């Protein structure tokens, strides 16, 4: 009954892609103008940490309703936790409650945990289906891009590090928009993956 009225998993991926796209644009514009200009209006400093935190909260119902195995549930739970941790740490920095620039290491940690969760919970090979391919791609992308927030913690004014971190979310959004529940990838599709639709 509930499964009948619930949106499909791919819809949820597209909604999160939309949030990540907005996150990417916000971070990219902050990178372009610099932290000082960005902080000239206090509401702006709360934008990306707030959005990140809210997306972490929204990941919990996804974990509860959309996971069909323990490892799948653990992966979604870990994404929810690191999104909230990263958002909360940045909110603390924005509010002035946290002072150390090394709190920004939470962003790097979030990407490492997220990437690992993507890779560990995907049990199928790259070309099993589009979802499997995207999980592998997302995992490695997150792990590689984790270098940017790591650099940002030590060099907060680095334009390359800030832009790299921002572009991760745009790449993440594009990959999530590509996701379909059951679909081929580059002409490959396992007979065990299910029946493609639309």
């Amino acid at each position, binding site marked *: 009954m509930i499964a009948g009225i619930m*949106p*499909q998993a791919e*819809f949820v991926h597209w909604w999160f892609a939309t949030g990540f796209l907005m996150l990417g644009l*916000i971070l990219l*514009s902050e990178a372009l103008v610099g932290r000082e200009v960005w902080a000239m209006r206090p509401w*702006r400093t709360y934008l990306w940490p707030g959005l990140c935190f809210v997306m972490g909260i929204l990941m919990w119902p996804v974990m509860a309703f959309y996971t069909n195995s323990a490892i799948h549930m653990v992966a979604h739970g870990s994404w929810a936790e690191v999104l909230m941790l990263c958002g909360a740490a940045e909110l603390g920095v924005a509010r002035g409650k946290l002072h150390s620039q090394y709190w920004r290491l939470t962003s790097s940690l979030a990407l490492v945990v997220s990437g690992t969760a993507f890779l560990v919970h995907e049990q199928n090979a790259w070309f099993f289906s589009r979802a499997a391919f995207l999980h592998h791609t997302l995992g490695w992308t997150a792990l590689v891009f984790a270098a940017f927030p790591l650099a940002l913690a030590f060099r907060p004014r680095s334009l390359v590090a800030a832009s790299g971190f921002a572009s991760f979310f745009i790449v993440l959004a594009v990959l999530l928009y590509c996701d379909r529940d059951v679909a081929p990838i580059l002409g490959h599709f396992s007979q065990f993956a299910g029946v493609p639709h639309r």
Partner: protein
Amino acid sequence: MSADFAHRLRRHDGEALADARSRALRARIVTALGPATVLGGVIWAVVQPWRLTLLHPHGQGVWWLIAEPPLYVIVVGLVFRLVIAPSVAEDVERAP
């Protein structure tokens, strides 16, 4: 006015001009991010029209009618352009 002072003044003017140009460029890029995103969404909608179930809504369920990814991209671009970008561009220009 000494030649040294005039030279320093000219160099200072040059730096100020370069700084103003850099600020104007950054403001323009931030302002362009939204329209570029909207353009991306429009191109996606044209390339993959079947992603827009609203174009052929007959027989579609409510979630398929809500799930319109190219429109989401367009909305993100519009929100960024109308809500966030104007204040950022304004602050880049008036920052000390």
